[in-house]
């Protein structure tokens, strides 16, 4: 199609990833690039920020309570206990981003497993599995998440697990649809006639062909998991203080809304930036991995 841009290379040479059309399509989506840049900056800030700041996230200074942003070294001000908000924000970011990332890994693994089995086996097992997916989708996920979080002793690990337990269904649906359409193709028949075991066919033959949609769904799941963590922690059932997370920093913010609006604004902006960045990246990946969108 556009061979002028991509000169014919030696067919034996491995394709170079920086020349791939997928990358070119992704880079053309400005918002997606902005998303990658923002996430990189946020990860760097959360990784190195706390050690660059003069304050510890747990250091209480009662003389400096409710300091507005840009007082002295408090770039984002202080909270009702005089703790530095910037230090808390970066430490909270570590937790929120980690919860988001690991919840994505778990829910993608679970969703892929269920989706691939349901899609490849089909029949009764397949439809039972997919009805379970539908049943999970019938609960408003926040209701289910809160019920689980309230009855389980919350720790960052458990919060990650229950977020994963309430967000694997989308991936399962996508993988199921993808695998069911691939199942009858010739290469699967070939693999089966060579005597491959079902598990080998699922993992080695089918999974690589469905990887595009899985990556897109996984990226969007990170966004969703960060949001869900913020919701549960805001409502008091997620990450427990003194451990800061973006959600629980907002937990007490409403009562000081008039006196100290920065308590609400700073973490909220951080959540919105992180979540929208992952959404932008997911959207960019969707277009980039879909070869049909070339030339559009």
């Amino acid at each position: 199609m556009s061979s002028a841009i991509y000169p014919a290379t030696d067919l034996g040479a491995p394709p170079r990833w920086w020349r791939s059309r997928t990358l070119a399509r992704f880079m053309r989506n400005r918002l997606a690039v902005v998303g990658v840049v923002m996430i990189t900056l946020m990860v760097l800030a959360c990784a190195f920020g706390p050690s660059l700041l003069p304050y510890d996230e747990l250091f209480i200074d009662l003389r400096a309570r409710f300091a507005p942003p840009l007082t002295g070294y408090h770039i984002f001000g202080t909270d009702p206990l005089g703790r530095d908000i910037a230090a808390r924000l970066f430490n909270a970011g570590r937790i929120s981003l980690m919860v988001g990332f690991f919840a994505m890994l778990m829910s993608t693994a679970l969703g892929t497993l269920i989706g691939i089995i349901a899609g490849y086996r089909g029949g009764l097992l397949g439809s039972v599995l997919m009805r379970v997916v539908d049943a999970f989708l019938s609960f408003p996920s926040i209701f289910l998440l809160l019920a689980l979080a309230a009855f389980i002793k919350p720790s960052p690990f458990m919060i990650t697990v229950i977020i994963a337990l309430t967000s694997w269904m989308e991936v399962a649906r996508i993988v199921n649809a993808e695998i069911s359409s691939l199942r009858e193709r010739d290469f699967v028949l070939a693999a089966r006639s060579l005597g491959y075991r079902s598990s080998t066919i699922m993992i080695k033959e089918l999974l690589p062909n469905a990887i595009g949609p899985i990556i897109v769904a996984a990226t969007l799941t990170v966004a969703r998991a960060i949001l869900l963590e913020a919701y549960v922690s805001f409502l008091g059932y997620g990450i427990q203080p003194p451990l800061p997370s973006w959600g629980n920093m907002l937990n007490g913010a409403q009562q000081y809304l008039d006196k100290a609006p920065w308590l609400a604004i700073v973490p909220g902006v951080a959540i919105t930036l992180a979540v929208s960045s992952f959404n932008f990246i997911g959207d960019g990946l969707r277009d980039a991995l879909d070869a049909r969108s070339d030339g559009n």
Partner: protein
Amino acid sequence: MLHYLLNRLGQSLILLLLVSMIGFAVLNLAPGGPLSQFALTPGMTREAMDRIAHQMGLDRPLPIQYLDWIWRLLQGDWGKSYRDQQPVLQIIGSHLFATLLLMGTSMVISISLGTWIGIRSATKRHSLFDYSTSVAAMVALSIPTFWFGMVAIYVFALKLKWLPAGSMYTIGNASISDYAIHLIMPSLVLALVDIAVWSRYMRSSTLDVINQDFIRTARAKGLTERTVLMKHVVRNAMIPMITLAGLQLPTILGGALVTETVFTWPGMGRLFLDSLGYHDYPVVMGLLMFSAILVLAGSLVADIVVTIVDPRVRLG
């Protein structure tokens, strides 16, 4: 048609059964379980705990407990609240109106605004309007609802003092206009995410319709662009939106829970959080089931409406 209806109804019932199993499992397998509220009472002994468990039938095998529970559920006995001994169904009923009022208003707002934005960005594809609304929609999907609510309260209630900061009506003055004023902020906040969802889907649905042959025919026979749009494009593009309305129900219900918390709205969401705080297990369970039933009923109605509206849908 009857065959389709029965089939679809059967599917909903199977889903309902699965939903009830998940809900039951969630709250029983969690450590603490239904008895955790008593464990906190001072002076509670092991024997007393066992006695309560026996009285409540909690020492029986789980499958038996489940069957017993579902049988009572079907008879309308949803248990009694641990807090004030009121029947669960009655408590839910007394909070239902507030939530339905909030959800209904917000759906009307999001559907009308979202549809308008979607049609406009589809007809003016690649324009500034199309580009900016699609970016705005993606950002709107990323804003935590509760935080957006707080920002709205800060701006419109605390700074501009245009609107009340919370609750459903002023005590002593519960007129319709008073309700309406209290409704504006929470329903708009709740609508934000759905406006984004609706405008995205309406845009792609309109784009699907707009390039079809019957639209060209309509233009060719000399209809004005406005008539083509209103009578041919929009009508057909709306059909997938009916299904979407059904699918969006869980999101709106979940959003209502958070919105109600921020705006101290006396609905099901606040009830759910309060009951969680008291470990009021029957009410939590009842609300989980009730919301799932609401969602299943919503998607059932949506599917039936689609078959009535769209004669092309094959019934099988």
